[in-house]
């Protein structure tokens, strides 16, 4: 039960963190120039967004939950279990970011999740 709770925590906080990060980047708008100064300016603007800091807090929580899991469970269990993040991420993208996730993209996401699980089971 405790393991299931921590897997849930890793996946949900990690995904919500990445969604907050996406929201922060969408708010600063599309980056068109890629000179070092332009990139630095874009990242500076991103760090002025509250969403960016929320993203860091959520991803840090996910990271520590992952560390807690790794103290009790094998990495060959933890990583495949958290590969569900890709599918949960697509759900979050659809319902929170209002992206259009087509059937092709869903199939791709599910194949990636399955593949990540296999890669770690094969370690």
């Amino acid at each position, binding site marked *: 039960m405790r393991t299931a709770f921590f897997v849930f925590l890793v996946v949900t906080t990690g995904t919500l963190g990445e969604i907050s990060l996406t929201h922060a980047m969408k708010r600063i708008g599309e980056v068109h120039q890629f000179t070092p100064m332009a990139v630095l300016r874009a990242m500076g603007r991103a760090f002025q967004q509250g969403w960016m800091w929320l993203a860091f807090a959520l991803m840090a929580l996910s990271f520590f939950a992952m560390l807690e899991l790794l103290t009790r469970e094998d990495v060959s269990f933890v990583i495949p279990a958290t590969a569900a993040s890709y599918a949960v991420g697509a759900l979050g993208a659809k319902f929170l970011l209002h992206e259009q996730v087509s059937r092709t993209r869903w199939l791709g996401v599910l194949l990636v999740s399955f593949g990540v699980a296999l890669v770690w089971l*094969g370690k």
Partner: protein
Amino acid sequence: MSSHSARHTKTYILLALMVMCGSVGDVILGSGMKQVGEITAFTPAAIGTFLASVFTHPTVLLAIGALIAYFICYCLLLSWADFSFVLPSSALTYVLVPLLARFWLHEEVKALRWAGIGCIFLGVMLVGFTPHTTTGQKAAAGAERG
């Protein structure tokens, strides 16, 4: 070059750079940490010495640089591309890391892992066939209608 194809090009270039930085960063971080050696004591002094040797090791610093570059590429991509496009595409690091481990570090890669690599590759290819951004398109369509 139209703005659509320019965006297409920059998406793929940045994606390739992101996957390369992430994979190389992971591999050299692993190599660097092995050179630093295992932590043997957990007293504050021992942890301090360990962290000092980690953060002054050139290979580890190079790896951290590569991983920061990965994060910047990831953020820049998300400024226009869909999260549901970038996230699965970032899994290509799972393809490149075992390949680098096999051919650079000469580690053994099991059959199950190759099967996983195949699935990820196929999945990313499928995601790659979908539009990079859908929220902008919807907005543009709405603007045209309006």
